[in-house]
């Protein structure tokens, strides 16, 4: 049950950070668009915005991966 509890916590954390991530992306994008379209034009603005959103998603994925891998290593270490 402890193993399941740890995984449930990971799922809950992933869910929570996903919601926070979506809010951050959708709140920050309109501000970015307003600022960028004046200086670099719509085409480069779209590329920049998608790029920034992708980087943010990758950062969250790395956090999720590290969390799960550390949990796994800890479980194996405890057994040994």
């Amino acid at each position: 049950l402890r193993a399941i509890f740890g995984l449930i916590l990971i799922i809950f954390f992933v869910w929570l950070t996903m919601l926070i991530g979506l809010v951050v992306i959708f709140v920050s994008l309109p501000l970015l668009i307003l600022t960028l379209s004046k200086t670099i034009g719509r085409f480069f603005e779209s590329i920049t915005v998608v790029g920034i959103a992708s980087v943010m998603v990758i950062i969250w994925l790395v956090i999720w991966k590290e969390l799960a891998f550390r949990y796994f290593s800890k479980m194996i270490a405890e057994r040994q």
Partner: protein
Amino acid sequence: LLETILPMAITILIGFIITLLLIPSVSKFMFKHGIIGIDVHKLDRPKIPELCGITIVIGVTVSAIIFSLFYPEQNIWILAFVSSTLIAAIVGILDRITKIGPRLKPVLVALGAIPIIFLAVYNPYPEFPFIGATRLTIIYPLLIPIALAVTANSVNMLDVFNGSMTGTCSIAILGMIICMLMMGRVDAAALAAALLGSLLAFHIFNKYPAKVFAGDVGSLFIGGSIGVLAIYGRIEVAAITAMMPHIMNAFYGLATVGRLYERKEISTRPIRVLEDGRLEVNKDSKAPITLARMILAQRPLKEFEVTRRMFILSTVSAILAVLTQLLIIWW
């Protein structure tokens, strides 16, 4: 209430009965023609008929056509659903025949987005919790192929133990149906019910100890269907949440191996079978970290115990999916 329950009851029953009736004859046919897989998580490594997921394809497709009688105004959507999911199923059959490889498979499954995009049946204004409706007219159609490839392949990658894929997907779809009903999307819920009915019938034969395997045709079709239903029901975020165990399993495996991979090409298997039949985690650092390996990290378990833990994780995800949809409605 009758308008809500009747279409759902009919589609779930049709999906269930067709799949249930087809499985015995299809499994006999597959076994007779040598279309078999080895159940590697058993000591005696029994031969099990494969590609039986074709019964789910038939069950859901027939049910979807009958569904169109209830909702004739949704005929374009039914066409998009059937053609998109059939593309995923054909990729599954092709993979069995020609071994199309782990890199090409998601690309081919992503082609299932073509009918949805060209028939323009999607709604590019998805709703998010705390944000409300958004306007993604350019990005949304670009995300549809990615969504189909992710759902189909993540379901495929969790088809590792007897009943693991059918059980976890049934729970996820049940969560999605509740979300659709909360949004008043009775039509989408009825279509999802067809898939749930077929899955439940298949689960009877696929649960531990399995008598049939779905094969890639079944898992890619189910994953593709979940992706299409999320778009149709306009419950994109809730569907991602309900599919969290599948997506996490696929992502962790991908992150360990560093590329898309087939189970068969992994030299260091993540799980090994002990002499008493229990499953033990492989402590080799080269083995991919999967959901099953994380469940087994603490102690060896019997196969059905691992599957049961996956069901618990899916139930938690389905509850979180409903909570996500509630946040969208309340906001």
